[in-house]
């Protein structure tokens, strides 16, 4: 056994162990922390599998954004329990009968067994599409970016649509019409303010660098957008004034700009070359760059909205009305 294989084996065992622990754990906070650790181990696994693009996105999403969303949801449920006057840890739902639990285990084992058998019979190396992609990319030297915005651009286009729909669905589920949300207003903490003042511009710089890098190296709109989303969450969580500087229509614009740019690019290419999203060679780089920039901004704005939108609507509006409702409208 080579040292490489030992490393891979350790990584794989840790991943499975973490997944097992986080799914078994009864304590929510423990689950959230284990999930963040799981995301970080996944990021290492992506590096081991020579997929640094995914590792960058996973480190920010799997370990960062999902963790924040989870912790926030846990805290919110605890807060609601307190509002209802329930104390102590939540009673777990009653256990299912043994037969049902046995059936679930059997179903999972059967699915796992079938999948293991399937993986066992995976054929050996196939040519894949790596050659085809590298033959056709001229301006874009990084094949993953080329696939994302040139060959499979419709996936990316629709994905921006999904993000937009998720934001709309979230606002509907929370019964809200705008994105304004009551800030949690933590006590003014000079250390927090100082850290945010240094960290936020630096993170935006990193996001811009990743976007610029995407043309020929791992990086691009996705990784950049995810980091922008994390900046938005940070600013909102720390109650930084800059997040309020943007009016509501500004947020709406940022959320749709990626999808809109893609749609405009599709219309222009349809008119110019007769094929949708088949960029004319002279304009190719400029179009791709503007699509990527708009996509990164939209991904960032949507992630911020997906987090901010989880919270009750602006409480300031309620105090303006002279009401002091603790439960804003659903």
């Amino acid at each position: 056994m080579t040292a490489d294989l030992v490393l891979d084996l350790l990584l794989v065992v840790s991943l499975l162990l973490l997944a097992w622990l986080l799914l078994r754990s009864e304590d929510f906070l423990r689950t959230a922390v284990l999930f963040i650790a799981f995301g970080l181990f996944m990021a290492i696994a992506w590096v081991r599998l020579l997929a640094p693009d995914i590792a960058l996105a996973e480190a920010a999403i799997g370990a960062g954004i999902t963790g924040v969303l989870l912790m926030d949801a846990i805290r919110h449920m605890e807060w609601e329990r307190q509002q209802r006057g329930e104390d102590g840890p939540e009673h777990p739902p009653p256990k299912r009968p043994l037969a049902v639990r046995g059936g679930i285990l059997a179903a999972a084992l059967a699915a796992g067994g079938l999948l293991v058998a399937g993986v066992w019979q995976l054929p050996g190396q196939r040519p894949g599409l790596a050659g085809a992609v590298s033959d056709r990319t001229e301006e874009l030297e990084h094949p993953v970016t080329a696939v994302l915005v040139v060959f499979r651009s419709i996936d990316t286009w629709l994905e921006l649509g999904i993000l937009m729909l998720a934001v709309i669905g979230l606002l509907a589920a929370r019964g809200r019409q705008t994105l304004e949300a009551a800030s949690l207003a933590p006590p003014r903490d000079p250390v927090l303010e100082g850290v945010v003042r240094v960290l936020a511009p630096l993170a935006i710089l990193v996001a811009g660098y990743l976007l610029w890098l995407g043309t020929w190296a791992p990086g691009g709109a996705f990784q950049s957008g995810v980091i922008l989303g994390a900046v938005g969450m940070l600013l909102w969580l720390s109650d930084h004034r800059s997040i309020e500087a943007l009016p509501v229509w500004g947020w709406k614009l940022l959320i749709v700009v990626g999808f809109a740019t893609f749609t405009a690019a599709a219309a222009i290419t349809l008119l110019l070359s007769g094929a949708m999203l088949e960029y004319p060679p002279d304009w190719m780089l400029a179009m791709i760059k503007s699509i990527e920039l708009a996509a990164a901004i939209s991904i960032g704005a949507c992630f911020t909205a997906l987090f901010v939108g989880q919270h009750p609507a602006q409480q300031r509006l309620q105090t303006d009305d002279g009401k002091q409702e603790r439960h804003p409208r659903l």
Partner: protein
Amino acid sequence: MMEIEQHALYALAAVLLFALGFHGLLSRRHLLRKIIAVNVMSSGVFLLLIAVARRDAVDFPDPVPQAMVLTGIVVAISISALAMALARRIYRQTGGSTLYAAEEEPQREEAQEE
């Protein structure tokens, strides 16, 4: 000893992750835990795709599955956020954190009083 290839190891881990998540999805009842279980399942799917891309790597792993996984990760997290918002709505309106509130909540209340 048989030489295990790297991609085969990760592919095996991927399907085991999927099965673990599947079991969690069915057996856990709290909605947040179900969302987490689905996330573990999707990690398994992504890992399998990239393990296959790694298998086909000559000098660079197949970029098409990589792009698919990147898209998938972003879609998975946005769907998780939407699911969490729905879970919060259910929690606020029914006071229950499962999908079985209607029949089982009264039993739980009785159990608490005993």
